[in-house]
């Protein structure tokens, strides 16, 4: 498999690095997970997929994966008629995910967390925490920039290509 460089070129954490991911593999991983969790961050409020805001796509296609919003995303989600399983700062979320007994919806520990729309440097740090201290948990980054601290991450993608990949994931995850 081709080596993918981190989006931020100096962000080289160590020997363990994410596997680059395609949309269809992400779907399989999500479908195979028993207790996935989708974390939506503040960039979802301004990132566009084609002509649509990412937040609108998530609200429309998010499916039955428990959703947690970070930063101030809750308001936008409520305005779209969706009540997430939980809302909290991404550092609080990450901290709780290191606790194997915690879950966002109270239905049992998560085995997969998917990050989407969390600013790159912050997301990188949170994924690092999970890599080291939540070894029971697998992590996926679905933003268009390669996150080496995840278990799997989209490689660095152009906007159009990323749009196709993220749509694949959101549309098919809903059919789980």
């Amino acid at each position, binding site marked *: 498999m081709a080596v993918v460089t981190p989006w931020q070129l100096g962000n080289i954490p160590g020997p363990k690095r994410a596997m680059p991911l395609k949309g269809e593999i992400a779907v399989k991983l999500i479908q195979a997970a028993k207790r996935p969790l989708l974390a939506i961050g503040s960039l979802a409020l301004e990132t566009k997929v084609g002509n649509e805001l990412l937040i609108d796509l998530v609200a429309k296609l998010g499916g039955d994966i428990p959703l947690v919003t970070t930063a101030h995303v*809750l308001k936008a989600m*409520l305005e779209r008629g969706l009540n997430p399983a939980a809302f909290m700062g991404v550092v609080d979320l990450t901290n709780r995910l290191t606790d194997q007994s915690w879950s966002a919806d109270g239905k049992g520990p998560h085995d997969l967390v998917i990050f989407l729309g969390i600013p790159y440097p*912050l997301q990188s740090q949170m994924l690092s925490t999970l890599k080291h201290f939540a070894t029971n948990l697998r992590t996926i980054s679905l933003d268009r920039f390669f996150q080496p601290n995840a278990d799997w991450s989209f490689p660095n993608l152009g906007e159009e290509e990323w749009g196709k990949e993220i749509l694949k994931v959101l549309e098919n995850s809903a059919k789980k």
Partner: protein
Amino acid sequence: MLETKEKPWEALGPTPKPSIRELRSWDFRLLDRYQPFYSPFCDLCCFCTFGKCDLTRGKRGACGIDIRAQQGRQGLLFATMGASAHAAHARHLLENAIARFGRKLPIQAGTQVEVEAPITRLVVGIKPKTLGDLEEVVDYIEEQITHLLSAVNIGQEGSYLDFESKTLHAGMIDNLAMEVADLAQISAYGFPKGDPEAPLIELGAGVIDISKPVTLSIGHNVLPSIGIVDYLRKKGMIDAVEVAGLCCTGHDISRYTDRAKIIGPMSDQLKFIRSGVADVVIVDEQCIRTNVLAEAQAVKSPVIATGDKICYGLPDMTEAPAEVITQSLVTGKHQGALIFDPSKVGEVAVQTALLIAPMRKKYKVIPDAEAFKSLAEKCTNCGQCRRNCPIDLPVDDAVYAVRNGNTEKLEALHELCLGCIRCESECPQDIPILSLIEKAAERKIKLEKFKIRAGRGFILDTEIREVGSPIVLGKIPGVIGFVGCSNYPRGGIEVAEMAEEYLRRRYIVTSSGCAAMNLARYKNDEGMTLYEAYPGIFDASGLTNTGSCISNAHIIGAAIKIANIFARRPLRANYEEIADYILNRVGAVAIVWGAMSQKAWAIATGANRLGIPVIYGPQGTKYRRLYLGRKEMREKYMVYDARTGDRVYIGPAPEHLAYAAESKEEALVWGAKLCIKPNDTTYGRQIKLTHYCELHKRYFGRLPDDVHLLVRTKADVPITLKGEISAILEEKKWQPTTIPDPTLLERMIRARK
């Protein structure tokens, strides 16, 4: 425990000059509730020749260290670096002040400040009366730094919790060093002494009169800049030269003379140097770009380095006659000089500026319109610039858009850009990207004319008496300090927006350092900066600028003085009790939105040890450690009721001790929340909950889901939200709790049942 020579002025408390171990039990109390949350930046340890050691997922290094302890170790190293920068600064200021004015020069705090050195009294247990008394404090600081740094060496500490305790100790030592440094310069150089109406100072690149020669001082140590002003005064030339300061030196020179002008925070360094406006650049210490010499050389501005921390390989010309040095700089024989004598720096800087200005003619490297276009058109839109930008700015799109005649994207980057030029380092086409940004923003920059209140230093004892009760009882919803560097995720405007929100809500807002400058850089609809629109008092809706980084000591000192002056808690060498008081009663929060330096880390960690929560911007997670609570863990938010000895639940108040927010909106909500303290009166809690709930509704779209944890009795519920909150209380099966006289310290229990 060390002996103190001080004669009794207050009974000596239990911890004069504490060593690493003496406040460890207090640290462990904090760390039990607010556990270290680590985000490693690097999975490896490369500190010794065993390494590199991979510490991923439970692996240990060759010395036995694991990833948690390694993060704690790095945190200690950073805090010690920060503390040592302030300590060395303090030592240097003190030595110079003593050399000039003598050991017996009184500590001068003005007529309205009796508790002149709250941190020194608290930690060291002395009441300094003269400059000479401060030497004992610096001796203690240097000793502690040596011990702390030694713990980082291989084969020393192995527990992450003990590393954290040591980091907290380093933070406390840093805070002490800041206080000594600012006390020395306030006393020796006549800086404002807590004046709420300290003069308004001109700030911004647009305030410089470019028809005059310009000296630009960068850094934190004001002595060489004082040399410049003194020389100009002596020669009657104060109007002949523009004296400009950048970063904290800008603050401090404007505390010495209101004729000085402040360019802006540290992110403006290269932007301003490249503009060519500065005829001579003087560097002192801290937060100065290490390639200033090359950048200044490019615009034909000589550089004068003035301290032993920064020598840049320049010849030491301290002993040479001023005229000889000046000639060598003006003729270009030397591109810079090292001069350790501040008075000589003053003469050489001024004379060089006067002589070289007509020759330089403000030579700049910002391209003209034609060069701008041709340079931008070299861009292949490869994206490497963006991938090297610390805050992921869309630099590539902005540069590439120029070929289509769009310069607006570049112009918009001016206010967001950190000025680090990592983009330029990476550009395969060698495009001077920062210079293009500055060219695109040229018209805007000329309009950058703002006002900032000069750093006032102390918070007055009289102010503390006025606000102590409303703060502790909760009638003033809190004190919010905007402090730290300019590594902002989305520009400095967010700091000003947050500050204004709190000012409107009658919080006390205080500031220092780069953050204080960013508060000044935006104007309201009436064309006023926040400093013009709000009074400089330490009171509800007041905005104070204490000054440079070292003036953070006064913000931290204000929290201590509330415990001492208002609540009459003994101060002398009584750290635990005062910290316990602040943690449980003083609604003060620091927002370090652009945290970058090791000094900012040390300052913030010192505040944490005193029980003051800190909110970092998202970049703050790169410090690799936060202190987070878990509000669902009820057992972690138990205190003693000092009246009875009972263990009482206080709710998550405050929930965290060191937090990082993803967005400005999130930080605003957290700022209000972390001001909530167990000791609030019901009326005070109503006010604090009102702000927390209103901000939560505005930015998160609904009431918080934890409001029931913060309502102790029904009288806590804000009247305006009674219906909504009562419904939540019912749904959550809420039960009232006692409002305790809260303490974490067993020894503070007055009577047991």
